């Protein structure tokens, strides 16, 4: 990625993150109705990110070594393995399947 574009990414995400942490510390208590609503954001978004990662460039589900990688990571997460163990296991599963089956 070109330098200016990378700088845009850094500054864009950094300033929004700063604002969110700062506004929270300055706001009075929010009504519970709002916090309940926003609690649905993270799960929906992360689930969508998993789904999008499993689609090809045409936007349609594309089944490849990432699927067993995600299943392995989900199993480990269900067993309460640390985040990093799930990530590395997913990478190893995908890397091994590619090496063995030349996918």
């Amino acid at each position, binding site marked *: 990625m070109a330098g200016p574009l990378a700088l845009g990414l850094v500054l864009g995400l950094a300033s929004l993150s700063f604002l969110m942490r700062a506004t929270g510390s300055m706001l009075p208590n929010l009504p519970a109705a709002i916090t309940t609503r926003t609690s649905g954001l993270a799960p929906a978004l992360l689930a969508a990110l998993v789904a999008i990662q499993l689609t090809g460039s045409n936007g349609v589900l594309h089944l490849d070594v990432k699927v067993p990688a995600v299943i392995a990571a989900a199993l480990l997460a269900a067993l309460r393995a640390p985040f990093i163990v799930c990530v590395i296991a*997913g990478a190893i599963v995908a890397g091994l399947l590619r090496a063995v089956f030349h996918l």
Partner: protein
Amino acid sequence: MPGHRSVREILLAAAPIATAIFVFGISFGVLAVAARLPAWSVVLLSGLVFAGSAQFAALGVIAAGGSVLTAIFAGALLNLRFVATGIAVAPSLPGGRLLRAILAQLSIDESYALSARAGAPGRPDGRTLLISGACFYAVWVVGTMLGALLGPVLGDPKRLGLDAAFPAGFIALLWPMLSGRHAVRCVIGGVLAALALAPFTPPGVPLAGAAVIGLWLAR
């Protein structure tokens, strides 16, 4: 008031988490340079954003060929929860509004969890938040730096399965949130919205659709 915890006690409680954050930082650095971000920008990202899941989400979008705007959007939405943690920690932080806004930058999931455990109900321990947060910040940035240096040595990211690290990481971040029917409903809705929109819309729209569905279904 809960007893005054010494710096040493706080650091001892933070140490195992700090180790995990350090390793997460290394992996983030490796993945980010593998996604062809310049090494300096990777370290700057960790230094200025200081939020693993948001950075990971933004990077996942970039690695999959999405635009910078989509990446910022994905990362920022995940960071929206910091508005809530900011409200929770504000009464425990010293100083006026400006200082509190700056100190609140040290809140991440882990430092907030430690401070909530150390404090009284509804009043997290400010000292724990600041000391553990500063410690986590240091290991996160140093870990990222190490990973960014290590990344180019490792070789072809696809051969190592690093592209699969993103969906694997997202599912690992998602799993602990899956308590209760509401969360499961939001997950299913998010997946369906994303998959329905992905073939017909530019990247970013499926994520926005999932976010709207998440807000709608969380009741």
